[in-house]
């Protein structure tokens, strides 16, 4: 086994370590024995050099947007600007205590106020809360908002939440934990919501409908105004999942399409880094009727309000998003959508010409989905095999096997921050991979061959879980 694979605990030599803080300047306080731990926690003891090299080695075994192409569909892996990071590192922000007196944190309040106002304008909404920590928490809060709204109108019987079958998994999960019964709405052959089926699903128990627009096939739901009208006429509210906002930024607004509640992902559209899985930020915008239900902060004295997390939300992420909005301004913000959609269509065009099959053969928005069903039938090479083969060409695979309504799906979202040369290179790689499906499919079943590991045994991991050292 390669030495740099060792866990930090396996490298530990008792007695090693660094002098980080000064010695006690007051007598050690003797805790009563009932409050004493029997033995200290066994943490690693490493020399500073080794800690540095350990995490440097781990970083070298990770892959970020800074390393290369990262077309994860519906994740909007755009470049994370350095200036945002510099803004977030300001000592005035980093050192702000969430319960400091208001006059001492005016800068933080200004960030929140400015960002909320900008998001209202971008969304076409009346108010925003920045408290939710991520998109899924924003969805959960949005659902609670809908619930409160119906309760306040004496319509607690409205428990049916409509969710298209193309939706992200978080949508039905969020609706369920907010107490709603999830009702699946089928898609038509053209990938859009089946409005006829929707009409049949609406009734006096309809609470609302969650939609992603453009949807997860990268298609704009052209019937959105009809859909909103139908749901509103049935007494329901419209929820906008902002995962795909990048496609319409500055071009159209959820608030103008009839949506009553929306969440945005600052870590997607607004360029804040994903951090290997967070922290993100999932602010929620609402129309006027829902403003009374926005979350509050109990530790600041609020009583009985909804609250998603402690304090004010992921403030450090808000700073980055505000820096992004300030840098781009109104014109470049709408150029983001133009270039994101241009890049996606360009790459789809090149891949389609090369022999790949789009799930829906029409112009896309910011992302598109290929189906490899035909390739698999012909060569035995699956979407997974193709994705893993991309790793050997030094790029991150796209989202796999999603949306669920497409077989052997690969979902590409190149984002606006990629150059034409990169897209051409990706297309060339995909052409080479397609050729390989015919010349050497066997090798593709075991790809990747150049990564630090081959394919891991997921079944073993789940069947006999080893979750810590």
């Amino acid at each position, binding site marked *: 086994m390669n030495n740099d694979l060792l866990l930090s605990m396996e490298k530990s030599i008792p007695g090693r370590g660094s002098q980080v803080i000064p010695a006690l300047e007051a007598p050690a306080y003797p*805790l009563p024995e009932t409050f004493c731990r029997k033995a200290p926690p066994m943490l690693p003891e490493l020399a500073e050099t080794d800690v540095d090299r350990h995490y440097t080695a781990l970083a070298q075994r990770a892959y970020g947007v800074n390393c290369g192409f990262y077309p994860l569909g519906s994740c909007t892996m755009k470049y994370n600007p350095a200036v945002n990071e510099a803004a977030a590192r300001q000592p005035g922000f980093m050192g702000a205590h969430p319960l400091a007196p208001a006059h001492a944190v005016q800068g933080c309040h200004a960030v929140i106020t400015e960002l909320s106002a900008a998001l209202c304008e971008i969304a076409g909404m009346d108010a925003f809360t920045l408290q939710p920590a991520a998109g899924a928490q924003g969805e959960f809060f949005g659902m609670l908002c809908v619930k409160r709204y119906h309760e306040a109108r004496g319509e607690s019987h409205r428990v049916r939440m409509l969710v298209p079958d193309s939706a992200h998994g978080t949508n039905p999960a969020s609706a369920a934990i907010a107490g709603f019964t999830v009702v699946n709405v089928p898609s038509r052959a053209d990938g859009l919501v089946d409005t006829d089926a929707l009409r049949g699903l609406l009734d006096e128990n309809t609470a609302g409908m969650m939609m992603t627009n453009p949807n997860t096939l990268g298609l704009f739901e052209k019937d959105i105004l009809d859909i909103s009208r139908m749901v509103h006429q049935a007494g329901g509210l419209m929820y906008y999942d902002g995962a795909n906002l990048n496609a319409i930024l500055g071009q159209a607004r959820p608030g103008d399409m009839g949506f009553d509640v929306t969440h945005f992902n600052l870590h997607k559209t607004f360029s804040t880094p994903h951090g290997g899985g967070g922290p993100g930020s999932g602010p929620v915008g609402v129309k006027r009727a829902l403003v009374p239900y926005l979350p509050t902060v109990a530790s600041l004295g609020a009583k009985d309000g909804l609250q998603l997390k402690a304090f004010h939300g992921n403030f450090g992420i808000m700073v980055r998003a505000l820096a992004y909005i300030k840098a781009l301004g109104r014109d470049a913000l709408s150029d983001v959508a133009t270039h994101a959609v241009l890049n996606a269509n*360009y790459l789809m065009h090149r891949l389609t010409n090369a022999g790949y099959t789009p799930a829906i053969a029409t112009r896309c928005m910011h992302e598109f989905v290929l189906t490899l069903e035909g390739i698999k039938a012909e060569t035995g090479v699956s979407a997974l095999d193709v994705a893993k083969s991309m790793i050997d060409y030094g790029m991150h695979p796209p989202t796999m096997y999603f949306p669920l309504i497409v077989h052997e799906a690969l979902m590409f979202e190149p984002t606006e921050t990629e150059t034409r040369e990169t897209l051409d290179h990706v297309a060339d790689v995909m052409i080479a991979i397609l050729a390989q499906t015919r010349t050497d499919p066997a090798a593709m079943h075991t790809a990747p061959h150049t990564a630090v590991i081959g394919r891991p045994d997921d079944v073993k991991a789940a069947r006999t879980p080893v979750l810590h050292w």
Partner: protein
Amino acid sequence: MSHYHPHTQADTAAMLATLGLATPDDLFADIPQSVRLRAPLSLPQGLSQMDTLAAMEALAEQNTRYRLTLRGAGCYDHFIPPLVSQLAGKEEFVTAYTPYQAELSQGILQAIFEYQSLICALTGMDASNAGVYDGASAAAEAAVMCRERGRTVTLVSACAHPDTLAVVRTYAYGTGHEVRVVPAADGHTDLAALQAMLTPDIASLYIQQPNYFGQLEDVPALFAAAKAAGVKCILGANPMTLAMLPSGAEVGADIVCGDVQPFGIPMAFGGPSAGFMAATAAMQRKLPGRIAGQTTDAQGRRAFVLTLQAREQHIRREKATSNICTNQAHCALTAGIYLTYLGTRGLTAVAERCLAHAHAFAELLTAIPGVRLRHRGVFFHEFVTELPVPAQAVEAALEAQGVLSGLPLDGGMLWCVTEKASLAQLTRVAEIVREVCAQ
């Protein structure tokens, strides 16, 4: 010249031509004309990077920068070793997505696995997840884990952080479950009251240690009572204190949760940080969110993957144990670096200094006429004092000296002392408080 989208006008024109489109507008043909924005957004024009940074610096400078922070109450001003920030700031960690592609993400998956191992070592539990949003939502998710048929009510101590209680209530409101508050007596969870509340519909009991007032609870007694009634026990711990206080396993917890913010994560106005969650083996498959596990690759080499995914929303949709997707992975990673760097002795040294300096400061304060401890119990590094003057007067006098005072709380003050406070600084603070109290 734009900021981050690189196309020249020639690029754009050539790419549009490839697509057979005349103008960029044609890209949006599927959006109904009635909802296309006709005018630009009502936002300012963009700024150069230099001006962007200057604007953000100007906002940051509107905040007061304190030389010393004596306020905790859920967010703690500990020393952050430069190595921790430097390593956590590596771009491959910062700019990666959730490690769905294990072959490209071994570094992040191993770092999460190590984080889980460190959390298990601290808590004494069998399994840890990769973290959730924060300590408050961790408590809410823990309550969800404990509900079963016939047992659905969550008990939360009145001595828990008010945000934690509010978040637990919000999550319970979603699923239509009940939360009952166990009253306090002299700043501690009232054991006698708890015993009377342990009806057969109670699923779990949440106790915060140290509690919101800084007091140490008699957790073993509280949990023993709960367990005797078949109730699951959730310990909400400040993880820094676990260097010295009994682990969750030692006090009989089924789940230990809390916030890793004290481990190398800046206060940043309260976020981002990460919530940790660790549980007994019996409950590990109910943990929400991402979990990294160890396995092997096709050649038998050690490998790490996200595992037990059958619990999660992208597989189970509306039947998932939680809706969490993006968590706070980078904060968990940072906490892991902090713990790895400090090690057993380093972490214990930080905790001991917090404990010793807090008690020295409490002695200095209570030597002032009219200042006394509000509660009689043992505390760790936070405590409440009564004051003979309005708390706001003490807050203002200390602010004038660049010190963020304790948190004004019901006429008194909730103080927090971390290892950053030297005895000389604390002595000076006590002198200022004495002067204010004499007025």
